[in-house]
Structure formats: C-alpha cells, structure tokens
C-alpha cells in the first residue's frame, strides 16, 4: 500500500544559515503511530512544520496521500491536524468558539455534534463555555488537540504532546491517541520520553542533526535501546575474564581495571545480584560500581556515531 506521507530529499536551510534538515527521506505508513525521537535541535519540529505548511522547504518533496504539499496544498492540508509544541491558544475565546473556529478554517461546515463528541472525548465538555485563559496547562493542551481534531483529519501531528503534562493525564492522552489510531487516523508524534514511544508507537524514527538515523519497528528498536551497562571498578586489574564467569556478557575495559556487564532492563531479572555474589565467591573485589543510566539523548548520540 502507498505510504500516506512520502518525504524525499527534504532539506531546509533557514535565513540565518542554519541547516535544520539535511536530506530527509521518510515513508509513513497508513494508520500507524510513528514516534519521532531526537535530541533538541535535531529537526523534529522543522520536519513537522514543513509537512504542515508552516515552514517552506529549501528543496525536496513531500506528498500527503498523493497530494504534493506545494502544488496541491489545499488537498494536502485538509487531511492534516497539527498540535503544536507550545501552548499557543487564544486567551479570551471560549473553548467552544475556538474549536468551532478551527473546523471552519479547515473548510468544514459547522457541525455541533462533531465538536460535542470531540470535547466529550477529551473531557472538556463541562468547560465548553469557559474562556481558554482560565484553563490549566493540561486542559489547554487538550484544547489544542480538540482544535486539531475539529475537522476530522486523517493524519494527526503531535509535537511533544505530553511535555509538562502530569502522569495521570499522560495516561489519558495515550489512551485517546490509541482510540484515534483504532479509527484509522495516522499519527506522528515527537517525544523525548522513551516510555511514551514504547507505550504507543508502531514504528520509531530517530532523527539527529537534520537526518533520519533510522526508522524501525518498535520491537526491534526497544531491544537496542533497552540495554544498560553496569561498570565495576576492580581493586586488582584482570588480564582476562575468569572462566567461572563465562556465562555472563562481560567485557574488560580500561586495561582490565573495569569490568562491564551488559544487562537488559526489559527482563524481569537483571542478573546483577547473582553476578555480584559470584564475584565475591571468586575473590574479585571492586572499589566502586555504577550503572550507566544513559538518557535517551545519549543513546541517540551513540546511534549517530554508530551510523556516521
């Protein structure tokens, strides 16, 4: 089946000379949830902004359901809903007015029943006559989602939808995104949170330095990202890993002064306790130990290096 979004050789250089995108190729499959992960400044928002028509591409092409975003912009944009990263809302309008406005802007005739359903789905119905400025941050975020959904788009872009949203609300948002996906909407979200991608995405794309580093099915990538390291500083350097410890995925570094154990946080048992017991049994003493809780951004950096 033809991808719903096809991006080819997309480049963007801003007037300041900053090159935000350096030739992005990306296919997004119909009906999937794609999580776009990447450090700050990687080009996530620029990529989304180009597809949605807010930023002009320097070169390359984007088609949305077969419609070129520049030549056939009206058809392309009609299919897309965008939830921006910043909480940019009108202040003085009511929730109802601002969501109805969005529907009209995207060329749909007024339909109070649709707006009512969207507001109820997002638990905003009892706030429909409240001015947007009087709402909490989490509610404003939901107003932005309601605005993006008001014209019943086939594709939804969520730029860091759960930034600054409390845990409970984040759960609710994930559920809502799941329901949207079940109704056939293709969803592209950017995030910093690995658990968010883990919870929802079908595919994960990693973007860094203006390039797509990889796009993979979630299961394959999680295995890669799920690895953690335990580093033990040894009192006495070792020449080789003792035969008794051969069953563990161990490596020596720093000239034998450090013993590195790779484990999988996805597993229920990490094996750390067993390893430390065995070390004690064999008289291998250590002065310090640390686990490498590398942040997602560090993992990105290592991925970038790996591919470079």
């Amino acid at each position: 089946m033809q991808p719903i979004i096809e991006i080819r050789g997309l480049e963007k250089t801003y007037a300041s000379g900053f090159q935000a995108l350096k030739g992005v190729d990306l296919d997004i499959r119909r009906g999937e949830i794609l999580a776009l992960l990447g450090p700050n400044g990687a080009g996530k928002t620029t990529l989304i902004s180009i597809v949605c028509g807010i930023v002009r591409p320097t070169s390359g092409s984007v088609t949305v359901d077969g419609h070129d975003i520049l030549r056939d912009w009206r058809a392309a944009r009609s299919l897309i809903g965008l939830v921006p990263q910043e909480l940019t809302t009108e202040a003085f309008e009511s929730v109802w007015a601002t969501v109805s406005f969005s529907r009209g802007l995207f060329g749909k005739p007024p339909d109070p029943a649709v707006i009512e359903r969207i507001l109820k789905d997002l638990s905003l119905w009892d706030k429909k006559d409240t001015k947007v400025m009087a709402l909490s941050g989490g509610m404003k975020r939901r107003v932005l989602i309601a605005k993006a959904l008001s014209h019943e788009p086939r594709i939804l872009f969520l730029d860091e939808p759960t930034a600054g949203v409390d845990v409970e609300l984040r759960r609710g948002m994930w559920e809502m995104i799941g329901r949207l996906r079940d109704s056939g909407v293709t969803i592209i979200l950017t995030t910093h949170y690995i658990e968010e991608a883990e919870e929802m995405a079908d595919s994960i794309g990693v973007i860094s330095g203006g390039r797509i580093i990889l796009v993979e099915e979630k299961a394959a990538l999680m295995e890669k990202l799920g690895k953690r390291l335990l580093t033990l500083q040894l009192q006495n350097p070792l020449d080789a890993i003792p035969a008794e410890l051969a069953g563990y995925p161990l490596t020596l570094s720093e000239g034998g002064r450090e013993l590195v154990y790779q484990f999988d946080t996805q597993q229920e048992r990490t094996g750390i306790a067993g390893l430390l017991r065995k070390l004690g049994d064999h008289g291998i003493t250590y002065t310090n130990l640390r686990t490498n809780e590398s942040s997602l951004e560090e993992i990105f950096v290592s991925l970038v290096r790996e591919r470079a």
Partner: protein
Amino acid sequence: MNLHAIKAIYKFELARTWRTLFQSIAGPVISTSLYFIVFGAAIGSRFAAVEGVSYGAFLVPGLVMMSVLTESVSNASFGIYMPRYSGTIYELLSAPVSAFETVIGYVGAAATKSVILGTLILLTARLFVDFSIAHPVWMVAFLMLTSVTFSLLGFILGIWADGWEKLQIVPMLIVTPLAFLGGSFYSISMLSPFWQKVTLFNPVVYLVSGFRWSFYGAADVPVALSLGMVALMMAVCLAVVWWIFRTGYKLKN
C-alpha cells in the same frame, strides 16, 4: 474557495468586537461626541459658517472619517498581530486557506466594524447638530471604500510590527496627524496658498473632501480625484498584501 474559512475568520473577528464592545465601539463614539459638544455646539456657534454650512455640521463628515480611519487601522492591525504575538498564527498558516481568503476574512471584519462605527457616530452626531446628506449612495460608498482601504493598511501594519510599540507608532505618528491635518476641522481653502499645496500631499484630504461632498455638495478637490485617490491607496495596499503572502514576509520561514 474555502468559504467556510472566510466565514470562520470573519465571525471570529467580529465576535472580538462584541466582546470588547465598550473599547471598540462605545469608546470612539463617546470621544467623537465630545468633539461635537465642544467644537460643534459650544464653540462652533461662534464660528462663521464654512461654505454655507454651519461649523457644527461642517465638522460631521470630517470627524466620522477621522474615527473610521484610525479605528480601521488599529482594529485590523490588532486582529492579525494578536495571533502572531500569541503564536496561534500556526493554525492559519497550516490551514487550507489562501492569502486572498485570509485577507477577506480579517479585512472584511475590520471594515465591517468601521462601517458600523461610522454609522453610529453619524446617528449620535444628529443629536447635537443638524445636517443633511445630499448624496447618500456616495456617502455609503466613500465610507465603505475608506474602511476597506485603511483596514488593509492596518493588516499590513499588523504583519510588519514586531512589537506592541511598533503597532502603536504608525497610528500615533502618521495616521492621527494626517487625519487631523486632513481638513477634518477646516476647509483647505482657509489655508494660505503655500499650505494648500503642501496639504495636497496628505491623502486624507481627498477622503475627507469626497466624503464631505457627499453630504453638502461642496468639495476642496474634485470628487473624481477623491475617488481616484481612494482607489490608488487601495491598489497600493493590495499590492503590498500580495507581496507579503508571496514572499511569506514575517509569516513563514
């Protein structure tokens, strides 16, 4: 043509007017009424009639024009500057809405408000001074053309401005002085020949003159010239708006 979008923008902008009824309508009506009381009823009775019209009545078209000019600029500039300032412009830029439709929505709403305001000021003026309208159709035409032209100017200003200060500077330093010196309070025939020539560089003169002609049949400059100047100003504004959307000036990176 995305008619639903035009309607949505237009309704949304007019809703802002109703929400801020006091500031946007009642305010200008009251302040213009004060001019009528002071210059028309109180002092005006001591002034000689201008071109056969009592000074109070002579003031009416000029004062209406002055309010319409300044309110068109400030309302239209605020209408488009506000979403730029708050960031909600992202929605307009990502919507299937053309530049033309955007302008019709925003400028149409601002001009509508100005026409309503002008009409209310005329009705209020009738309470203080006696006046007649010789060419009502032309009066309405001048009112509407001026409202649209200066709303376009306001729209451009709202896109050009980078801050609240810039947004105030043009109305304060350019539009208001031009409106005051544009013959709202006097006939330019009262000026010395030198200043008469200088005044002709002020585009507001042509608007006020044409508008006053539609009331009393007397004008400082030929009516055709007045109409021509309004058309020219509108054409210039439209060209600038077209250029803004073509280049994405201050709207798109």
